[in-house]
């Protein structure tokens, strides 16, 4: 239900758009690139870009017209020889950090990286405390 409910909300948002959307989808919205290597590159990138009109879906998982347009952009730019990083940067410049599912370290996202690092330390400390000392105790006892 979970995902489906969300998709429902997304569809609600997309509905008025699709009603007005009489334009045919862009050529690369639903067509693959001929070169499998380039297509694989494009697909990998598309799975990490957010569909802005949807709720929690990547542009590779959405029927929203805007996701189709963005897929077209990604595929045609890959074909033109741009690197995935360049395309991501272009999209981020246009739509903000929100469009990218890959957070990068910045003033607003550093805790996403600092906390896991801290977590590793905590985990190590907990394990040492709980298991390490026991071993020392056992050593003392023997």
């Amino acid at each position, binding site marked *: *239900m*979970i*995902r*489906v*409910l*969300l*998709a*429902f*909300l997304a*569809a609600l948002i997309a*509905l008025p758009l*699709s009603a007005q959307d009489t334009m*045919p*989808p862009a050529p690369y919205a*639903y*067509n*693959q690139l001929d070169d499998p290597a380039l297509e694989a590159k494009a*697909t990998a990138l598309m*799975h*990490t870009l*957010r569909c802005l009109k949807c*709720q*929690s*879906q*990547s542009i*590779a*998982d*959405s*029927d929203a017209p805007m996701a189709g347009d963005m897929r077209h952009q990604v595929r045609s730019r890959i074909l033109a020889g741009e690197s995935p990083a360049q395309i991501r940067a272009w999209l981020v410049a246009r739509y*903000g*950090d*929100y*469009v*990218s*599912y*890959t*957070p990068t370290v910045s003033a*607003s*996202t550093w*805790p*996403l990286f600092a*906390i*896991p690092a801290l*977590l*590793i330390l905590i*985990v190590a400390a*907990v*394990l040492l405390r*709980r*298991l*390490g000392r*026991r*071993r020392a*105790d*056992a050593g003392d006892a023997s």
Partner: protein
Amino acid sequence: MIAEIGLAALWLAAALAVLQMVSGALALRSAEGEANPLAIYARPAAVMQALLAGLAFAMLVWAFAVTDLSVKLVAANSHSMKPMIYKLTGTWGNHEGSMLLWVGVLALSGGLIALFERRLPERTMGATLAVQGFVALGFYAFLLLSSNPFERLPVPAIEGSGLNPLLQDIGLAFHPPTLYAGYVGLSVAFSLAMGALLTREVNPTFARVMRPWVLGAWVLLTFGITAGSYWAYYELGWGGWWFWDPVENASLMPWLAATALLHSVAVLAARDALRTWTIMLGVLAFSMSMLGTFLVRSGVLTSVHAFAVDPERGAFILVLLGLYIGGAFTIFALRAGAVAEGKRFSFSSREGALVFNNVMLSAILAIVLLGTLYPLVTEAFDVRVSVGPPYFNPASAMFAIPMFLVMAVGPLLRWKEDSPRRIRFEVLLLAVILIGVIGLVSFFGQFALLPLLGLGLAAALGVAAFLPLRGRKLTRVPVATWGMVLAHFGIAVSLFGMASEGAFTQERLAAVAPGGSDQVGDYTFTLQSVNPVAGPNWTAIEARIAVSRDGGTPVILTPQARNFWSPAQSTSESALLTRWDGQLYAVIGNQAADGRWQIRMWWKPFVTFIWYGGLLIALGGVLSIIGRVRVDMKRRKAVSLGDERRADLEALGTAPVPAE
């Protein structure tokens, strides 16, 4: 009348929750071994409350079944033309109905434990029921004060607005009820943990009482998540099965906590160790359930700002959340010092491995929690960030990989203390399999690191799952051990499915004219025709696609693009061809201006193993419950038999002795 009966039942149930809370709390004030005269009401109150909440839920189902359009909820979410099954399942396909289901399951679990649990000391039982009543009361208040499912319309609607078409699927019959039963089943673990903590009765008896509840809730959660994942996979039309979406994470977090809890409870039951851990995980697991409910039910996920504009419901749950979680952890902090940690053990022992994995599970839980809540936090400050698979996958793998490695050898270790040298053959064997598979797969192609590791780990774990059976007589292995073997094997199967889907999926998007063909993987597909079809509340275009593998006999797939008219919405119904080694996934899209049709095809090798694995895990849990309960029954029978014999002997002893 129906709706009023339901509402009255709900109010009465809420009143009984107060009685249960007060009466249960009074049990705490009675002296050891003595029963407080007012404490006897807790059990009957809990049982009666379960019946009343069940009645309220049945009344709502009835209102949906007959499409009573004078009830606001029915008018807003149902439609007289809907097939009966979706009328019934539509009861919980909305906010109020699903909260009523939630509360109903909460009352039911409280009633069951009140009815059947006789092993705990009365004081602990009283405290447990008091906590259960306290939790239930909060959610009754939430339902009655802010989300009344039985509200009437001043003027009955002429026709209902219908149910979201995506929910008009058999998935709605299984996924929410099992998931909710799992979520809320954890409330018993929570109440028991608080009861034991308040009365300082954290011991193996308590763990044996708690275990079937934890296992049961965990089985239901596992099944619910598996069903939900498969539902999203076939319903959304793009072949994805897990999206790290906040709502999915909301169900994953209680599962992670419950997994850690059930292992910790096993240690407490078998070895009387890890007492505070078990209590903490018990509190954590249900806290995650409540947090999940808050995330899903408050509207905070749609937009933090929408939540801020209309905060009534969200704020209500948030207050409940603060009250229960805050309260529980406060009591935990105050009392944990008084509970001794229990028996000691060394690092290389089964307990050691279980502790290691519990810590890893908790760390994964922390990562998921962080990734889910962080975007909400920044959004409140008008900074929007997205956290998706590129973050969750590596961050959780960081802890999951060591966990899987320890999981492979943990069950081979002995309790308390063991020498790693004793199992060096097994370790060596698993290392060879792991490295061998990774080497072999990367020899044949270029794959991403995580799927590659996943394939290697799956192979090693698949073998490791059965190693605990080595050298044992299979007919004499306890049922619970089979449960463990099966569940661990299920993890390997599921992991294999995920890695294989990630590494080997082939995709083909093509515009095909009727009569035209294309190719995906080993399959050739031909679009034979596209025809209009109609259902009870939808019309659709249906493609007939003939697919054949390596030129074999063709099979017809019929994906549809459906248009529902109430509410007006379109969905794509994918068509699946299931083979033992994977699934072919077909979707029909729009027609292009030149008359060709958009066809999307995927060949997903072994993708079904993801859900087979999930089912195996759940089945392992069921076996474990059966095994544990059987052993417990036997033990109880033996104890009562012994008591009888002793009583007989005593009776004999006092019998008149014949003179001389």
